């Protein structure tokens, strides 16, 4: 089970300002806080810097590298920015966020995954867009996974992102994801699943409550990685509890240790 800390993202106001001011200390503080809160990977995303994304990526990765040993999740739809991030992200096995079954994206991102032997987030979409039905999602997932495996990527390095759409727009969008995760998990027991949680609650009140509940439901069907805010103690606590309940925490040691350390709290 993995927690990918999502906070270093230039779409967030404080990070944007820190990047503009080249405030390395702030970036490093946020990086360290996420590590202390229990993140396993740190996501680095500066996609909003459309005119200098590569340069910003290099600066962010190097800045974080100075204070944190955790592996990084290099997050961009732009292969050039991914390449720069991976080059500087030296420690541990990096993660690429993301590849998809879109032809151009698949072909341009795959060589990076192979070259740096990374884990890879695989978005469940192709050139026709985001699948509308459960059947469609299964078809795209199947193609994406078998194409990655054919290219020598290990099942254990694939993190399928089913792509979550807002429940407020269609009340079946939550259960559709759960159904697809369950059935893909049966077919490919060794591949992993990852998602960002906040899309599910778009347009609804008390969003964090829905995010948390949805995370727990996903853990129950086999989702085992989440891109989230590790400084949000309530979601991290729920993560620790659900992980133990799903049989993913030997002797419940992570749970107990987390409670003792004050990270997991009712």
């Amino acid at each position: 089970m993995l927690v990918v800390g999502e906070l270093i993202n230039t779409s967030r106001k404080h990070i944007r300002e820190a990047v503009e001011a080249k405030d390395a200390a702030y970036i490093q503080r946020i990086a360290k806080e996420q590590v202390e809160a229990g993140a396993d990977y740190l996501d680095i995303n500066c996609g909003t810097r459309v005119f200098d994304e590569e340069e910003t990526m290099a600066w962010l990765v190097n800045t974080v590298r100075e204070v944190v040993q955790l592996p990084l999740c290099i997050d961009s739809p732009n292969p050039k920015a991914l390449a720069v991030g991976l080059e500087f992200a030296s420690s541990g096995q990096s993660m690429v966020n993301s590849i998809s079954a879109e032809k151009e994206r698949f072909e341009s991102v795959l060589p990076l995954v192979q070259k740096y032997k990374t884990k890879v987030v695989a978005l469940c979409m192709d050139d026709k867009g985001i699948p509308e039905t459960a059947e469609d999602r299964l078809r795209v997932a199947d193609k994406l996974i078998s194409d990655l495996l054919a290219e020598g990527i290990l099942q254990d390095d694939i993190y399928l992102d089913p792509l979550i759409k807002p429940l407020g727009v269609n009340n079946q969008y939550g259960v559709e994801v759960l159904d697809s995760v369950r059935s893909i998990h049966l077919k490919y027991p060794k591949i992993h699943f990852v998602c960002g949680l906040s899309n599910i609650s778009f347009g609804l009140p008390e969003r964090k409550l829905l995010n948390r509940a949805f995370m727990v439901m996903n853990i129950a069907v086999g989702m085992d990685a989440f891109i989230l805010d590790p400084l949000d103690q309530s979601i991290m606590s729920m993560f620790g509890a659900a992980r133990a309940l799903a049989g993913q925490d030997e002797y419940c040691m992570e749970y107990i240790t987390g409670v003792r350390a004050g990270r997991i709290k009712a």
Partner: protein
Amino acid sequence: MSDFKELSESVISGNFRVAKDLTQKMIDGGTDPGQIINEGLIAGMNVVAVRFKAGDMYVPEVMMSAKAMSIGIELVKPLIAASDIPSTGKIVIGTVSGDMHDIGKNLVVMMLESVGFSVVDLGVDVKPEAFVEAVKEHKPQIIGLSALLTTTMLNMKETLVALEAAGVREKVKVIVGGAPVTQAFCDQIGADGYAQDAAVASDLCKKLVG
């Protein structure tokens, strides 16, 4: 409560069965169709838009209200000439080239239609040339460009360049939106307006045609 007020209330509460019955009753009673739309249905949606923008109403509620309104409009439509259907303005909208995301764009379409705009929705992955063609064909006052990806938002600029090259840029206001888009980006590429969500988008459009 006046009939119009009651009809507006049914739209606000998203009670489409009541909205349908009241609209039919008013039609049968000889109420002016234009008034049914303006003073009943759209008046209700205007309240919804304000509450949605203020965060007092949520997306599913707005969708129910929009459905109530459109059921009413469908009943009234056959009674009046297309040219007499009140229209706040005409908008061509689409998700830009290379981008398949449409949930946000669809919410904007819903809000715009709800406040009386006639909307031509070009769908997703809309090439710059297709926007140019649509401007020539539909002669809208506004074009709305949507993008969810940081890579595709640059195609908003491409679209502006294409409009310029075709000599139609001056004929329309161009507005932009989508998760990675900001006011600063809007200014940078020379678009005419930015809205962070569907409620603001409908206000922005009203202002631009007003």
